[in-house]
């Protein structure tokens, strides 16, 4: 390993794992400058409504995420957690987002909620159009006060860690009451309490009156996740973002929670954005599937298209690495070779090329464009470029 000198900083290829103190200082200075600017725009008072009002491209959609870029400005460089993500969430449908850990699924959902850790994390580009019936706002540009009225009300979120997602020092009742009270001004205390108990009943908590008075540590993980779901549903949201809601739970409870979500969805008719790396869950729940890899959408389509006709080599690999019942006899579980590229120093060719078993000469070129093989099925891979051209010709 070579020590980087002054001249070396300008070299085209450098070792990203080694940074001199000087470089770190330069990077953090630049980052501060950039993030300060973003913060300044964010913190402005009295932003006019026109600035974040927009129009939907398709009126059947509840939310349209377009070309979303969320970057983290860290001391080792800019981490492009989400770079150019585009997908739609139609009204009343479930959209599943799959991908391995660190591919930007959660950051996408946090960007929608505007809960990305600021000032390091910033939405640098793109639109998140959301249909609130009377008006359509761009959530990427909406000011904080406005967003506070939307969070927990129109869009709510269920997190992956039920064990730590409830505040340990407050009673369950208080925590659910709080969100109802916040978004229903002037509701009487009695009514709020009744609504909370009703919600706890709805998510299948038998002893709802008793649980109302309990502290989170008195409940099991599954029960806590039910409380989280009750909290998320209590204001009849238009969109529920479930960020790996069953990851921390054991398998039987997972199935129960998934059943619960599916039943509730039919009852309240809202859209669900389901983030998971469990393909089984996606197959059962989702109408549409978005496959993400290293901060980009590499394939998306209806659940049927993705499961019956996966096109991108990564999706194919993902499908192959599912454990099958009775499949263990066949030997080892399949895994995709190699690892994800360094997020600070992404290559300029296809991010999957180095792990891909079907890579060809063309793959060394620029990042592949989005290719639509059907109206709904998109894939970003050079292998399907020709078929598209044929169709258009």
């Amino acid at each position, binding site marked *: 390993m070579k020590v980087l000198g002054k001249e070396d900083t300008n070299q085209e290829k450098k070792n990203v794992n080694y940074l001199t103190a000087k470089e770190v200082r330069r990077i953090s200075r630049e980052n501060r400058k950039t993030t300060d600017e973003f913060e300044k725009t964010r913190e402005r008072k009295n932003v006019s409504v026109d600035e974040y009002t927009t129009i939907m491209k398709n009126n059947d959609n509840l939310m349209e995420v377009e070309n979303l870029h969320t970057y983290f400005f860290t001391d080792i460089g800019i981490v492009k957690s989400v770079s150019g993500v585009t997908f739609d969430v139609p009204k009343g449908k479930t959209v599943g987002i799959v991908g391995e850990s660190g591919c930007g699924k959660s950051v996408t959902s946090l960007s929608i909620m505007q809960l990305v850790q600021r000032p390091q994390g910033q939405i640098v580009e793109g639109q998140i159009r959301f249909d609130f019936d009377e008006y359509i706002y761009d959530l990427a540009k909406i000011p*904080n006060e406005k967003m506070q009225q939307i969070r927990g009300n129109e869009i709510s979120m269920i997190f992956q860690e039920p064990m730590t*997602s409830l505040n340990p020092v407050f009673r369950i009742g208080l925590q659910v009451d*709080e969100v109802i009270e*916040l978004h229903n001004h002037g509701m009487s205390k009695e009514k709020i309490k009744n609504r909370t108990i009703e919600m706890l009943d709805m998510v299948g908590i038998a002893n709802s009156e008793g649980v109302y008075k309990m502290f989170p540590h008195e409940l099991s993980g599954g029960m806590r996740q039910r409380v989280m779901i009750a909290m998320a549903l209590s204001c009849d949201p238009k969109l529920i973002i479930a960020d790996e809601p069953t990851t921390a739970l054991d398998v039987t409870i997972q199935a129960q929670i998934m059943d619960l979500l599916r039943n509730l969805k039919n009852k309240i008719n809202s859209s669900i954005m389901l983030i998971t790396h469990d393909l089984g869950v996606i197959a059962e729940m989702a109408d549409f599937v978005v496959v993400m890899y290293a901060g980009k959408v590499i394939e998306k389509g209806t659940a049927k298209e993705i499961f019956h006709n996966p096109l991108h080599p990564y999706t194919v690999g993902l499908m192959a690495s599912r454990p099958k019942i009775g499949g263990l006899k066949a030997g080892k579980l399949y895994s995709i070779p190699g690892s994800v590229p360094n997020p600070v120093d992404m290559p300029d060719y296809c991010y999957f090329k180095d792990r891909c078993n079907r890579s060809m000469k063309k793959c060394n070129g620029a990042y592949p464009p989005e290719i639509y093989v059907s109206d709904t099925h998109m894939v970003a891979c050079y292998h399907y470029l020709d078929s598209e051209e044929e169709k258009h010709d």
Partner: protein
Amino acid sequence: MRRYVLKRLAITVALLFVVSLIIYTIMRSIPTSYVENQARMLSQLPGAKSYSEWLAQLNANYGMDKGILLGYMQWFKSAIKGDFGDSWQFNIPVIQKFSQVIWYSFILGAISFILEIIIAIPLGILAARKQYSRTDYSITVIALLGISLPTFFFATILKLIFSVWLGWLPLYGMVGRYYELLSTANQYLDIAIHYILPIMTLTIISIGSLMRYTRTNMLEVLNSDYIRTARAKGLSEKKVINYHAFRNTLIPLVTILGGSLPGLFAGALITETLFQIPGIGYTAYLAMVSGDIPFTMFYMVFMAILTLLGTLIADILYAVVDPRVRVS
């Protein structure tokens, strides 16, 4: 809970016994001997008995002729009845001297304790909210200054600035020269003015650690999942910080603050000595340098009781603020 407290109290008593024995042994073994000093002084008077004669007589009078263990047993026997004997240095019963001076220390400690809380906790929260910002760094630098400057150095600097250069505040003492001539209201004012510098010293010295402690705990809480949940509910940032986060930061804070409550009675030995405030710290200092065994024994045992009481209070308060440790 009750059994727990009783068990803790039993351990406390056993600990106190051992601690007092150690202190007594040390007091008997240190070179400063009150009796020897007295004997030397008395033997130098015209026509007096010789030094060794005086020493033997005084040793017998003060009960120093017995061995350390026997001497300790004698002390322990009367101490358990609440009789700590007469102070050699001050010539009055130890308890009487103690009740004369303790309130000066208590007021000094209480005011700086309250100021410490009022200043350090909000600063700590502010620093945590704006982590790595200019505000955070400046607060941290001030806190570090407070932690690292020794009391005697800092007190001397304050004296130099406010008494010597500016001449605003008295250099030391608890009352001014004309205290007796003042009206009651002015007498209080006089004491208050004399208290400003010691309180400033004590507060600034203690702010640093509490502020750092608050900042660390607040940061930990702010990064936890339930704070993200609170934000996801749509709560305003103010409510998230002041209610959801602060209530959790309070758990470790209340524990250490509660634990330091008995310390209000301990006096501030260095600060009181520097400003010559006749509190318990200064008095104990005088007693110690003159080898006054009864008073020193009383003060040290009192300190030990306060320390043990502090940990007990801390443990009980923990159960009060954290529902997870509450025992039904």
